[in-house]
Each structure stands twice: as C-alpha cells, then as structure tokens.
C-alpha cells in the first residue's frame, strides 16, 4: 500500500550455492517500475538462477529481495499473481492442444478472456488448436509468450524471450514489450546476447559468475559494445590507414579483405571504407565476453572458463 514504491524489483546481495558451486555470489538489482530492464550475461552466469529466485522456485541462501513490494519467500503466491513468466525452455510434451494449456494456466490466475488469448495468438501467428507436443521450438516459444502476456501482469519476467523466434516475430515481440512499457508496466528480460535487448531496453545489468558486474543505461552500453567487422573491397587496401582510424583496433588485412574490431560507433571506419569500392560488409554481434574483456574485468575475463553448468 506504499504509494511511493517505484521499484518493481530490489535485490541486495543475493547468494545461492549448490554444494561448493556458487551460483549466485551477491546479486544486486534495482528495477524501476515502468522500465524495460535487460539482464545480460553469458550462459551459466546465473541469469536463470536469479530469475527462479525472484519467482520463489529457488530459495536464496542470503540477501534481501523485494518483488512488487513483497518478499518472494513469504508472499510468493501474491507476487506471482502479478507476474508473467516465460521460462527459458517450455518443454511441455502434452498431446493436448495449446489452447487447453493456455486456458488452464489462465484459470490458475482466475481466468483470462478467450479473446485476449486469441488476439495474442494472432499477433504471433500461433495456431492454438495444435497439440503442443508437435510444435516447433519457435511455436513453443510463442505459447510461452502468450501465457506470459495474456493476463497483463504488472511485471513480466522473460528468460531468453526471443530465442527461436524468426526476425519478423522478434519485431512483433518488441512491439509487445513497448506496449507493456507504455502501460506503465515493467519488463525484466534476460539474454546472453546484447542485440536481443539493445533495441528495447532502457537499462541493463550484466551478470558474470553470479555477480552483477555493471548496471548501465542501454545507450552507454551500446557505446562500449565491440563488434567484429569484416569488409571486402574490390582492390587490396592499406592496413595502416585503417589501423589509425578512430575506435578501430586489431586490424588485419588479407589481400582485399579487412578484419577489425570496432568499439562503439563504426562511423570512422565506414567513412574510410567509403573511399574504396566495398563489395561486402559483415558485422558480427557484439560479444558480451568481449565487452567484459575490454571494459570491466581487465585481464581475467574469459580465462577462468565458464565454470558451472549452463543455467539457461
């Protein structure tokens, strides 16, 4: 009943261990109400564990946690009433049609109008009359999205929401996320690749080895993101000129092909390249590991291996 609780999620020092394996070693998060919050980290970093702690599927060993004004340990049912959750995988193998599962899950929440389910299914072009067992990964993901969005929850917790969706549906999904934000509701979405959240998130936290290593505005993060660019020219080019360009490093020229890393804006590189005839340009996704390596952890990033299992 506290009118001035603008935070959807507040976590301080969350810890969780399985035997000697520390899945979470002090996670701090502040997610404001009405924002889209990206939760980034490599596989096995603790994203899914954190999400499961938020939902009270996993009990934290220590730390403070508040979700929508309550502690999941004591008020789990109450919190989950206002939360829509998309699991990292929806491996339901029922022979029953998707509609039955959606109706059932809606009933667990006291009922969701059929029209609402139909509307979402149509937007995602999902045929709800088909048995879940036969659905492709992408279609299962759509079922998961429909059940997460259908009751218009105050907080959406989405674990790797766009995996398996084709680009067109990813756009539709992002539109749905923006609508939720426009409604003043909150979205907390995890991903192991920056590009999945960079178009829609306001802020993002980066988790690594069970610890939050950075929480930043998306713009700042984008600014720092490094991507690997490959250019192929009609004629051989000089390495030196490109190596001298702003924000460009690790330049390798192999005849008419140039490989390099670009930190942040590729403006200087593009302008330089425009002096030549460009036959092809590829730009790889910014790599999160790369992001740590260059900006956060200095030397040790990537050396101690991704200990532990893939928790996503």
């Amino acid at each position, binding site marked *: 009943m506290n009118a001035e609780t603008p935070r959807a999620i507040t976590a301080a020092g969350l810890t969780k261990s399985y035997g000697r394996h520390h899945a979470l070693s002090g996670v701090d998060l502040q997610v404001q109400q009405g924002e889209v919050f990206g939760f980034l980290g490599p596989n096995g970093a603790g994203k899914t564990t954190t999400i499961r702690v938020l*939902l009270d599927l*996993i009990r934290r060993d220590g730390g403070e946690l508040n979700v929508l004004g309550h502690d999941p340990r004591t008020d789990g049912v109450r919190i*989950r009433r206002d939360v829509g959750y998309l699991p990292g995988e*929806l491996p339901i193998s029922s022979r029953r049609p998707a509609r039955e599962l959606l109706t*059932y899950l809606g009933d*667990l929440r006291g009922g969701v109008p059929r029209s609402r389910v139909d509307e979402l299914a149509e937007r995602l072009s999902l045929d709800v009359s088909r048995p879940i067992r036969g659905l492709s990964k992408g279609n299962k993901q759509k079922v998961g999205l429909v*059940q997460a969005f259908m009751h218009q929850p105050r907080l959406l917790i989405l674990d790797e929401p766009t995996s398996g969706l084709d680009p067109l549906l990813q756009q539709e999904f992002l539109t749905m996320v923006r609508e939720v934000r426009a409604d003043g509701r909150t979205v907390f979405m995890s991903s192991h690749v920056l590009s999945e959240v960079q178009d829609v998130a306001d802020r993002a936290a980066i988790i690594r080895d069970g610890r939050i290593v950075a929480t930043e505005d998306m713009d700042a993060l984008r600014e720092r993101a490094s991507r690997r660019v490959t250019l192929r020219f009609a004629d051989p080019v000089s390495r030196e000129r490109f190596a001298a360009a702003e924000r460009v490093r690790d330049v390798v020229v192999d005849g008419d092909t140039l490989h390099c890393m670009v930190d942040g804006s590729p403006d200087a590189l593009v302008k330089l390249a425009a002096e030549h005839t460009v036959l092809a340009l590829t730009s790889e996704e910014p790599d999160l590991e790369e992001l740590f390596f260059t900006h956060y952890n200095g030397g040790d990033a990537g050396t101690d291996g991704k200990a532990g299992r893939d928790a996503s």
Partner: protein
Amino acid sequence: MPRNVFGKYLRDNLRALLGWMVAVAAVTLLYSAFWPSMADSAEAMDEFMATFPSGVLEAMGWQDLTSAEGYLNSTVFALLMPILMVVAAIVIGTRAIAGDEEDGGLELVLAHPVGRVSVLVQRFAAVVVFIAALGFASFLTLAVFAPTLDIDIAVGYLLAATSMTTLVALCYGSLALAVGAVTGRRGLALTTGALFAVIGYVGNTFALQVSELEWLRFLSAFYYALDPNPLANGFDAGFTAILIAVPLALLVIAATTFTRRDVAV
C-alpha cells in the same frame, strides 16, 4: 476443460488411464474365466497340488484351488492384477511431481499463483482417483461376470478384495510421489517405488518360507491387504486403516519437504 491442477493432471493422463483400465479388466476377466473349467477338474487339481511341498505352494501364492475364493486369491489377486496396478501407480505417482519437474512442466505451474502444498495435494488426489479407477475396473469386471462364471461370492466381498488391492497400489504410488516430491528425481522415485513393491511382494510370498525373513511381511502392503482374506471375510478394519494411513503419512512427509526445497534446479 480442466480448471485446476487436479483436473489438468487427470486430463493429461486420461489416455494412459483408459489403457491401464482395459489391461486390468482384461487380466481380471482372463483369470476368472477359467474358474468354471477349473471347478470341474477340482479333484484332479487337488491331487496335483498335493504333490508339491506345502512351502512351494505358499511361495507361489497358491491356495486351495477348489473354492472360488481360493482360486481368485491364487490367480487374480496373487499376481498379475496387483502387479499391473502397482506398476501403474508407481508410474503415475512418479510423474506427478518428479517426472513433471524433470520435463520442465512443474516450473511453469509453480510460477503461477498457486501454493506448493496445493499443487502437491491436488496431484496426489488425481493419483488417488487414477488408481481408484483401475481398482473399479477390476471390481466391475468381477461383479458383472461373477454370476455367469459360477463365482459365488457376494459383491461386498469382491469390493473389499479389489479395494484392498487398490490400496496396495496407492501405497506404492504414494511412495513414488513422495520420493519425487522430496528429491525431484524421477529415477529415484521410480526405483524406490519399485524396490519397495518388490520387497513387499517377496516379503509376503517367498520370504514366508524363511523364518529369519518373516518380519519382512510387516513392510509389505500386500500382507495387510491379502492376509485378512477379504474375499472370504470382507474388510478388516485395522489393516485397512494401515493401508490408508501409509499414503496419508507419505503425503504429509512430502508436503513438509516439497514446500522448502528448490524446484527445477
């Protein structure tokens, strides 16, 4: 459309239930259908049986084959029907929590505004209904065909006998469910249920021949169900209470642990 965890679990397992019901009814009918011809050759059978040492007969669960009760006890209720029911119960009990958890379905349900105790109790209730339906299939088969097969046993006694076997299945099904709820491990739930069922079966048959192993029968649900001979005597209040108390106790143990542990790790 199922509206709750209980209904949904039954709906998801309806095909399996119908399959098991047909199997249980078929086995019941198959054995009892031989009774008329067995009754005709009762004397020859008696002589044949007399050639065995008495220990062997007991070990095989064979009794007096010249009365309808003895025949049914030695065939329908001694072997295949209870084994079918127990196997079905262990399978459905394992799936209720641990199986669903390892498949990833439980995580989704528990992310909804439902309490863990509620989910556990509803799934348990569905398991009870599932097993009761199997017992009912066996009872119905016996009750319908008894008159035409010259089986002269009152319906109430048939009900008592099939109910006791149903409770045996429920004991082992509850054990599988409880182990699954405590550990979340499908394999462990399945093997624990099966192990105790085998111990229970052996404990009430072969182990009776070895005096050092006689105590085993007290661990056997089969002992509490079959020893009072419900086909001849009807329900035994004390032993029936034990067979009801065991699943309930297992449910309580499961609930206390299931609410505390991590799910889907």
